[in-house]
């Protein structure tokens, strides 16, 4: 009886300590609860699928993001708006404020750069894209007319 007892306790202790270690290594990391969000460990890259992802677009395989930017930098805002509909990567690239700043400074260049920056802060929450979309402007493509979207 005593021998049985003495054998059983270490085994239980070992199991318990193993469990605690396992808990530590799996997902329970109690200190993460301090942030109030459930953070899961990030899976190692590529582990979600057995096949590595190969982008079918040669454009994406060949050119790094900064060169996709160089291409988009040579398009009009209207073509950028259409390009955003192609895929997520393009939409993300088109979000770059540099495109919209350039478009705004060109569309309202008559106001001057300093004045445009002031208008940006006072009326458009610092967003060039918002300014491009909602500030009335004269469009000169073909016929001349006033353009306003919202």
């Amino acid at each position, binding site marked *: 009886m005593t021998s049985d007892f003495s054998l059983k306790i270490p085994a239980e202790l070992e199991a318990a300590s193993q469990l605690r270690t396992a808990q530590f290594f799996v997902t329970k990391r109690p200190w993460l609860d301090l942030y109030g969000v459930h953070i899961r460990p990030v899976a190692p890259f590529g582990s979600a699928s057995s096949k590595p992802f190969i982008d079918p677009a040669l454009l994406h395989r*060949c050119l790094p993001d900064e*060169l996709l930017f160089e291409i988009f930098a040579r398009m009009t805002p209207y*073509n950028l708006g*259409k390009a955003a509909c192609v895929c997520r990567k393009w*939409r993300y690239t088109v979000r770059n404020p540099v495109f919209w700043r350039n478009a705004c400074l060109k569309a309202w260049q008559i106001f001057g750069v300093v004045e445009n920056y002031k208008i940006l802060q006072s009326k458009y929450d610092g967003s060039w894209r918002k300014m491009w979309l909602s500030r009335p402007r004269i469009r000169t*493509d073909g016929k001349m007319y006033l353009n306003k979207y919202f």
Partner: protein
Amino acid sequence: MASSIENNNEKLTLKSSDGEEFLVEKHVALQSTLLQNMLDSDCSSADVIPLPKIDARTLALVLGYCKKHADASSSKQGELNSFDSEFLKDMDMGALFNLVLAANFMEIKGLLDIAAQKIADTIKDKPHQEVREIFHVENDYTPEEEAAVREENRWAFEGFP
């Protein structure tokens, strides 16, 4: 050293990623800001300059562009413009992408401009479905997301060809 740099007939050797060597006149190489900086920083022109990111086919195209622009720098701009458009005419997309990469790496602004513009021109004024087909871009939007993005960019489709 200084006297050899002043020599106009000086040539340098560029080596492509696939091991082919190109002998280039210095004034042609100077179209590239990268090579210009290398020469300015006293990099010996006797050495072979490796360009590990550029294959022989692309490098030959790049050097053809550089030669034309170096030789014609004093001649008419119109002639160069027609050369540029002829240069990129009928070029397949893969070759264009490689040109953009090479022009960016070698810092040849004029070439980056025309090659990137050519790709931009292929994208512009086409429906996004057609652009996906041309460039084999996968539509990774869910139908709901696509509808939302379409709505977000509705302004770009209105009153435009």
